[in-house]
């Protein structure tokens, strides 16, 4: 059932997608950051109505350094699509998907917490799992695992 919609998406998005392939039953699309909104709009129009997830992968030493990864699910076709793009360390910004999916709001906050990815247009990027005033982004590979930033000083 999924194959038809995958073919349709590949065909319709062919000019916008750098690379498309199947990864363990999921259609994986590699795109340029600027193509995010049109690509996701097309996905939503094709029935991908459930925003599953957004996260990032840190590849230090590579340029661009961060890979931002979205997953979408279609409740009609019952298949998933993965969208990936790369952003540079100096300007780790992509467009927000909040106007398209409410669920993006909290998950973009988490991704901003953990990797410092900026979601342009998301007005509410306050810390969600971390606390106000936390310095750095803990899931970046250059953040030492043992580093502590206690909000309340430890008792001597």
């Amino acid at each position: 059932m999924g194959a038809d919609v995958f073919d349709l998406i590949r065909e319709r998005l062919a000019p916008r997608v750098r690379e498309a392939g199947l990864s363990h039953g999921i259609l994986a699309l590699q795109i340029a950051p600027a193509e995010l909104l049109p690509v996701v709009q097309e996905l939503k129009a094709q029935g991908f109505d459930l925003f599953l997830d957004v996260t990032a992968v840190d590849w230090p030493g590579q340029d661009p350094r961060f890979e931002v990864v979205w997953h979408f699910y279609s409740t009609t076709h019952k298949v998933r699509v993965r969208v990936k793009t790369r952003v540079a360390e100096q300007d780790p910004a992509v467009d927000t998907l909040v106007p398209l999916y409410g669920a993006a709001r909290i998950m973009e906050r988490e991704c901003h917490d953990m990797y410092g990815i900026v979601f342009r247009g998301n007005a509410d990027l306050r810390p969600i799992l971390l606390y106000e005033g936390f310095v750095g982004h803990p899931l970046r590979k250059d953040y030492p695992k043992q580093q502590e930033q206690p909000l309340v000083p430890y008792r001597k």
Partner: protein
Amino acid sequence: MDLKIPNPVRPAFDKVDNPDAIIVNIGPSHPATHGTVQIIAALDGEKVLRTDVHCGYLHRGFEKECESHTWHNLIPYVDRLNYCSALINDFAYCEAVEKLMGVEITPRCKYLRTLLSEYSRLADHMTCIAAALMELGAMTAFLYLVTIRDYVYEHLADLTGARVTYSYGRIGGLARDLPDGWLRRLEEILVQYDEWVGRIHALVDRNRIFIDRMRDVGVISTADAINWGYTGPILRSTGAPRDLRKDTPYLAYAELDFEVPVGIKGDNYDRYFVRMREMDESVHMIRQCVDLLDEKGQGPINVDDRRCTFPEKELVYTEIESLITHFKLVMDGPNVPAGEVYSAHEAANGELGFYLVSTGGGVPYKVHVRAPSFVHIGGTHLMLDGYQLADIVPTFGSINMIGGECDR
């Protein structure tokens, strides 16, 4: 001592237009917030105008920690995501790794995992309903449900050695096979389940107080639920029959006969009833799995694959190849080829997805969990705004936010 503690959160609003409104803080240490969630609410009298929900008080760096342990060593960690149904986390994680490795589990393992997933769902739903009812004052109902849940916990302890965090899944199989008499005791518990849950139905289903507190409270529409990423019992309570066990069958679900119960209007009462009906379906599935185990599920529980399966202890002590395999698996971890995978199971709360990235070798490069509770917290305000202050308690109870998986 002059100790100034900075506020860990910045509220989304510090004033509201309504001159009569006040802003109050509820939680994170409030009995009705289960200890880990904070709700900043603007109130006009008893009416909730606006809420700002904060989580993160149970954040422990799960994903960071995962990047420095072998694939096997993560199993105790994933147990602690949704600690009410730890086995489902185990199996979802193991399946994701198995997909990366191209491992296909044995039939016995498949049926056992299905059986135990449903058994865990039973325990999880009972915990949720028991807590939600107790917060409304139904102490008897709480004790009834926790009695039967305790039978389940003790019974799982017979199998796994632990009551709550089992560490029972293994990449390519399970820790151990069923002990003697386990299935006999299972049937006894299922019979008792029917009896005790029947009493819950009798106590609350048509109870005037219960209906007044639950009906038409915390309503969410299907369109809103999908837009805000809701899955699991909350989405189904709105009337949408979306269930990964039916839609993208995994494990042995394609072979099982079961229904997907749905609600009518997505209020607290529907969420209660959907969970109650799902428990009945789980029991039905468990019984089918017992039969399937007997018919097709004989044989080993672990795959015969040296990349992930530990050799028998006896062989480790007597045979050099097994000793080396054991040593390599402990020291280096299972050799998972480079790649990435997203794999999801229908956990008790909704879609539990694992996004794993491997660069080859025994330690993951990245582990990300798509935790249903975390997504649900993002849309909680939809079910709180516009209702009474006292409605926060049953609504929050019916969302079943689990701090372990929400905050990771």
